[in-house]
């Protein structure tokens, strides 16, 4: 049982008035104390949208400077907050220590100056963030458009601690006021970033627009008061069906939900992967990274994998061979990519043990007695997925042999986050139909956990949606006809225009 403190941070102020204890019985159990959010709600709620004004006293370069300096300070060897977050995460995250260490060392790099500029430019356009962008219209009018920030609440996910950095980035580049509701499976990382910011630049507008709070998801005494259109304009919600559905009850005109919904990913492997033994082994190594990376805790991981091996006896034999290679390659992954999960879902273990005997239907590659550490590759012996695809965690993948890889597109849906496809030619061929079927990103096999930055996410552009897109219309009555004008006046205008 680990015990620790989760301070409430409100716009540069660290509140350590610990009053509430939370116990989590899962994952070995941990307990933390945190101040009562309800008590400080009057401070947490930004009553006026003008609160954002100070963010407009700085320009984009200063935002980049700030984030770049913050990146430097999030150093595992010198920053005690960051180190503490890492050590505590090691106790209750389901990621292995080696993977966590790699994440805490590398994830701040997303805030490097050039990365920030690329993100802002690619997703929004820096000029829209910095000022009013003018477009001349054909009728003589002009519009000037600006992307301004919003007051936002972010209900973030805690399975992989890269979400806090991307949340901070989104808030900073859009000049938003950000309240982060941290989850019980990572209540500590976001706060460590906020405290580093306070030490670095206590009065900087970006520091003064980040709040970090934990309350139990669903606590109406808190949520009903925050989730009001006079207090927030954007609600960015990560999470499963239950949490998203629960949040939708607070929606009303004036609050825009940006859902980063529950997703799963799928993998399509064309027959080219089975061309010869050498290719099989190479592709298996890359597939293994998609299965095992981040210890399979992320939504981008491979879980169900369709393999164009054919479904006759020879095809199944080939699929089994490939499954064995993938299993072996998972064991050989670098520790910083995959160290094996801390806890293996006992429900999944029971499912695995229960189908172990069903050799007509499934062949399971694992190390007997050590499945919890090694994971497993289940090769279906008929062309059907296992009946528990949503339980596939802990480096457990299911290879499903198919006769035609195109048929696997049928399993795409609005919940298909990423599709890892091999070879590239197959991706080019399938991506149009795959996109229509619900696929949201197509990635080369092997890059599942390192493919997300820079592009749209979950089929939407959260950064653009966090902005409010304001238009200023310009029209000169000497040029543009107005509804108060009579026909002769308009005709005269037209003559002017022609002359």
């Amino acid at each position: 049982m680990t015990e620790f403190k989760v301070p409430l941070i409100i716009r540069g102020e660290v509140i350590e008035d610990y009053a509430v204890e939370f116990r989590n019985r899962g994952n070995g159990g941990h307990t933390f104390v945190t101040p009562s959010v309800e008590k400080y709600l009057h401070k947490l709620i930004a009553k006026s949208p003008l609160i954002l004004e100070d963010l407009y006293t700085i320009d984009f370069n200063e935002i980049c400077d700030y984030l770049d300096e913050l990146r430097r300070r999030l150093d595992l060897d010198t920053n005690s907050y960051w180190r503490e977050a890492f050590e505590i995460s090691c106790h209750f995250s389901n990621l292995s220590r080696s993977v966590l260490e790699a994440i805490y060392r590398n994830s701040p790099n997303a805030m490097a100056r050039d990365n920030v500029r690329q993100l802002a430019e690619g997703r929004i356009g820096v000029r829209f963030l910095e000022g009013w962008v003018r477009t001349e219209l054909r009728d003589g009018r002009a519009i000037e458009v600006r992307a301004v920030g919003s007051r936002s609440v972010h209900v973030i996910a805690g399975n992989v601690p890269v979400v806090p950095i991307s949340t901070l980035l989104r808030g900073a580049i859009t000049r938003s006021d950000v309240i982060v509701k941290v989850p019980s499976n990572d209540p500590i990382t976001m706060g460590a970033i906020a405290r580093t910011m306070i030490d670095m630049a206590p009065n900087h507008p970006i520091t003064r627009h980040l709040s970090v709070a934990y309350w139990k998801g669903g606590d109406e005494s808190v949520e009903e008061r925050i989730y009001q259109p006079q207090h927030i304009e954007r609600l960015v919600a990560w999470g499963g069906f239950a949490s998203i559905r629960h949040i939708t009850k607070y929606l009303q005109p004036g609050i825009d939900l940006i859902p980063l919904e529950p997703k799963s990913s799928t993998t399509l492997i064309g027959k080219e992967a089975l061309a010869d033994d050498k290719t099989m082994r190479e592709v298996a190594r890359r597939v293994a990274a998609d299965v095992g990376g981040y210890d399979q805790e992320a939504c981008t991981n491979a879980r169900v994998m369709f393999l164009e091996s054919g479904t006759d006896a020879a095809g199944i034999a080939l699929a089994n061979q490939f499954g064995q290679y993938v299993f072996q390659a998972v064991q050989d992954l670098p520790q910083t990519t995959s160290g094996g999960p801390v806890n293996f879902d006992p429900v999944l273990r029971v499912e695995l043990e229960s189908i172990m005997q069903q050799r007509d239907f499934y062949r399971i590659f694992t190390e007997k007695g050590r499945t919890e550490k090694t994971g497993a590759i289940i090769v279906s012996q008929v062309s059907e997925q296992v009946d528990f695809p949503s339980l596939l965690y802990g480096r457990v993948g299911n290879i499903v042999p198919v006769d035609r890889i195109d048929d696997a597109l049928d399993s795409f849906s609005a919940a298909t986050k990423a599709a890892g496809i091999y070879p590239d030619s197959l991706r080019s061929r399938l991506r149009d139909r795959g996109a229509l079927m619900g696929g949201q990103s197509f990635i080369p096999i092997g890059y599942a956990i390192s493919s997300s930055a820079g592009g749209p996410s979950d089929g939407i552009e959260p950064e653009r949606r966090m902005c409010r897109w304001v238009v200023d219309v310009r029209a000169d009555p000497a040029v543009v006809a107005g509804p108060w004008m009579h026909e002769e006046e308009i005709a005269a205008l037209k003559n002017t225009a022609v002359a």
Partner: protein
Amino acid sequence: MSVPVHGSEDAADVETIGRDDLSNMVDRSWDELFGMDRIEREEFQLRSLRCRFDELLPKLSSLSLQVEDTGISRIGKLEDVVPLLFHDSVYKSYPVSLIEKNQFGRMTKWLGGYTTVDLSNVDVGKCDGVDRWIDTLDAQSPLRVIHTSGTSGKLSFFPRSTVEIGSFFKSYLKVHEGFGAEPGVRLGDGQTRIIVVNPVPRYGRQIRHRCFPLMQKFVAPAPDQLYALDYEVSADLVSLSGRIRIAQAKGELSRITLSDSQRAAMVKYLADLERRPADAAGFYQRIATELRGKRVMAGGFSNLLQDAARTGLERGMRNIFAPGSVGMTGGGNKDGALLPNWLELVREFTGIRKWAMNYGMSEMISMIPMGDEGWYHVPPYVIPFLLDPVSGTLLPRKGVVTGRLAFYDLLAQTNWGGIISGDKVTIDWDGPSPSGRKAPRIQADITRYSAEITGEDKVTCAATPDQTDAALQALLAR
């Protein structure tokens, strides 16, 4: 020695299976069963377990695979059986696509690995659904499959045979028998006849439906003196929403199609479900009038009985059944539906003082009766174990211990009786029982492990199953 089980059969052309000595243990008195001290009990259990193991091993391919996997081929002491216990989910280890594609031949082959009943000559070629499949097995073999409610996903199928249904029936009624000087009545052997009242659906393929014909034959004074709700529980319908959830998780929702008749049946079933609490409440009001002053065996979920009692008492109905009536109840406290004084209300309304309670599950043939208040006593024909809920290691069999319940059920004669359940229970292994029963006893506050292990209030970006039935509703609206 074998004694035929009477009357658990309707299909005349199917040979029933005889109950063996071990299964006949259920007929012994509680004094005898709860009179054994621990050494005597465990000697009996070890001897019986070896006997079951030796008989079943050559006939059950699932067991021989388990022996092969674990390397355990001999039972030296009771604990040796633990690695050979089956997780309850092995009884749903078939691919659900077999049902979707009507491949009931393969389903039968799968099931055949778990029973000694020979299914090789059963013809299931014409089956187009689970109900038809089970009915066909009924007609062509002594197998009497029971299924679970399957609301969470797949249906589990337990391959009982006529003999286990008979043993369950006996074990279920045995709770009414007294221990020592306690009053009680022996039911189920046709000697004492009593009207049976139980507001649950009358027809179906779950264990309670399997028992109703036996109740009619051996308990009710006449076959029409079994009062139940006139519904049928269809396995195909109860499993539909679960099957849809699985299809959704697999991205295969488009593969599920419903014929007009299936859709109509499902709509009717859902309407029945909605109406059922009201029907059950109305049922008791009707019964109260019709059977006033009669001796009955009354049953039902605790919340239903509570609601019936409150309505009845409001209308001035009190002590409606004759002295000598018995009651059996359980469950029903979901969402805290039960009032603190619910049992008092039920007693006052019905006039039945003693409400017996059994602890059991579809996975188990034996029922575990409540003796001391708040405690279920494990009869010698069940060998209980407690396992660590996560690692699965065996916990000590002494003192007061909480863990995942596993057991070997010696009343299983044609299938392997070893099961690891999902229940969290506390067992007092050897503490003295106020009533004098000698047995390990299980505390009544039994819960499921699922939520506790996975943790709460976690947010992840990865997919979690949709527990609403939006997809089902969409299919029905088509």
